[in-house]
């Protein structure tokens, strides 16, 4: 049983590390603000779930697990919210998506 | 490895001087304060680096095990210094805001010009 949990947690951690990395590459390589935001925010949540889940399996039932669950819950609440807030702020300020305008310079004054 | 052990101190020196450069060379008062915060962070880094003991852990006794602890004293000094740092930075920002209200500018040259008039 413990070997199974161990393997599972390593798998989760590896996948988590990968998705975090993919998010980083996406945030760097994507062509405009909204696609970058998409790459960053989706993998942020997925990576957090996988990595923290992997650690939780390692920690077993303890105070640490409860703290990890709290961290995960708060991350899942705040991270998409800040992405949403940021995207709406950018849209209100007039930054247009790439496909529409094909431009991404400084936010209009 | 011997040289790697000094890397933290080098970063301290470089960071300190980057902050100092912003203070001397940038005419914008807010930028000067940002430089000053960097300068502060460099000093914090120096203190904490000095307190680290190889193979040690944070000076909070765990329930079992761990006999080597890092030095608590620099941590105490820096812990208070961070909060003091933000309050003094806020005081500096307050002065900058007042300067802007009186002179209409936060660029050193322009303030000096107005003063000389």
């Amino acid at each position, binding site marked *: 049983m413990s070997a199974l949990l161990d393997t599972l947690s390593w798998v989760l951690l590896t996948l988590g590390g990968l998705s975090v990395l993919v998010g980083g590459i996406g945030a760097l390589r994507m062509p405009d603000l909204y696609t970058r935001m998409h790459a960053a925010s989706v993998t942020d949540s997925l990576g957090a779930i996988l990595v923290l889940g992997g650690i939780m399996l390692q920690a077993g039932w303890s105070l640490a697990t409860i703290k990890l669950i709290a961290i995960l819950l708060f991350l899942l609440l705040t991270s998409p919210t800040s992405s949403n807030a940021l995207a709406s702020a950018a849209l209100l300020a007039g930054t247009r998506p790439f496909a529409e305008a094909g431009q991404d310079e400084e936010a209009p004054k | 490895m011997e040289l790697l052990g*000094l890397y933290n101190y080098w970063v301290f020196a470089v960071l300190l001087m980057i902050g100092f450069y912003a203070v*001397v*060379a940038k005419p914008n008062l807010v930028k000067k304060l940002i430089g000053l915060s960097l300068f502060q962070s460099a000093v914090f880094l120096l203190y904490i680096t000095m307190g680290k003991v*190889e193979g040690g852990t*944070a000076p909070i*006794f765990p329930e079992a095990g761990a006999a080597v*602890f890092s030095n608590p004293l620099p941590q105490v000094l820096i*812990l208070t210094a961070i909060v003091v740092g*933000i309050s003094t930075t806020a005081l500096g920002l*307050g002065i900058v805001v007042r300067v802007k209200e009186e002179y209409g500018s936060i660029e050193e040259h322009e303030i000096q010009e107005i003063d000389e008039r």
Partner: protein
Amino acid sequence: MIVIFGIFLLTLLVITAIAIVRSDNLFVAVMLMGIASLLIAANFFLLDAADVALTEAAVGAGISTVLFLGALALTSERERAKSSNRLLSFIVVAAAALILIYATFDKPRFGDPEAPVQTHVAPWYLEKTPEYIDIPNVVTAVLGSFRGYDTLGEVFVVFTAGIGVLFLLGGGKATSTLPEEKINEGLRHHLIPRVVGRILIPFILLFGLYVQFHGEYGPGGGFQAGAIIAAAIILFALLEGEKRALSVLPERVLLGLMACGPLLYGAVGLAGVLLGGNFLDYSVLSSDPVKGQQLGILLIEAGVGITVTGVLLGIFHAFAARGR
């Protein structure tokens, strides 16, 4: 391996610092300062300073950004003039950096347990804390008891800085011509952040209290807790507008908090004198000296927390009120 992680983070920190100095948009510089704070906090954690990392997290992640942005809103976002004596400053700074780096070759090796810093007073603190105070967190023990004078001084510095900001910015004239209700509405029209923020505020407050009272057993204490609680109330002010926040905690109450903290700290010290001990000697506060020490630390940490909360909130409101 951990050493390599530290080196990597420090390199990122230097890159960030250079970018901060080079950018001529102050808003960008403030954002990059936020990144620098995250990196340096991670570094503190790697260097075994959990308490310091928590302080940097509490202060750097929220409050410092909020204050700088508040100041930018009142001044300007762009640097206009280029520096005139760039070459000269660069030469001076580079020379100084080289001298400092040259000096580091005389420094003891990183992490050397035999270095002079580690061999004088620190082992005594580590050894005597269980005996005299009997709490696991040595940092809190040194902060509250062994070096209580230091901390009292720092609390007064924070207090003075807060008073200074209020003198500079408080009770000022209105600088803006905007309709007041527009300014005061905060982020009330942003539904999603508002709902999530409202859910979070009680948890942040609860976490702040946990950090305050768990400071003797884990990383934490008055300085961190004060900053976290102030951050929670600043979040409320951002979401609901200045006015609502001020009606929850009016300016008079904030002034009271600012003054109460140092008073409480000083009173604990004086109580020690009255009970026949020295100033800030907590052993006499209870019949059992160890219990007395613990009680004293609890009280002065509360004093520190109250001061820091009051001062940071007072500063925030002073900046925010100026924008009206």
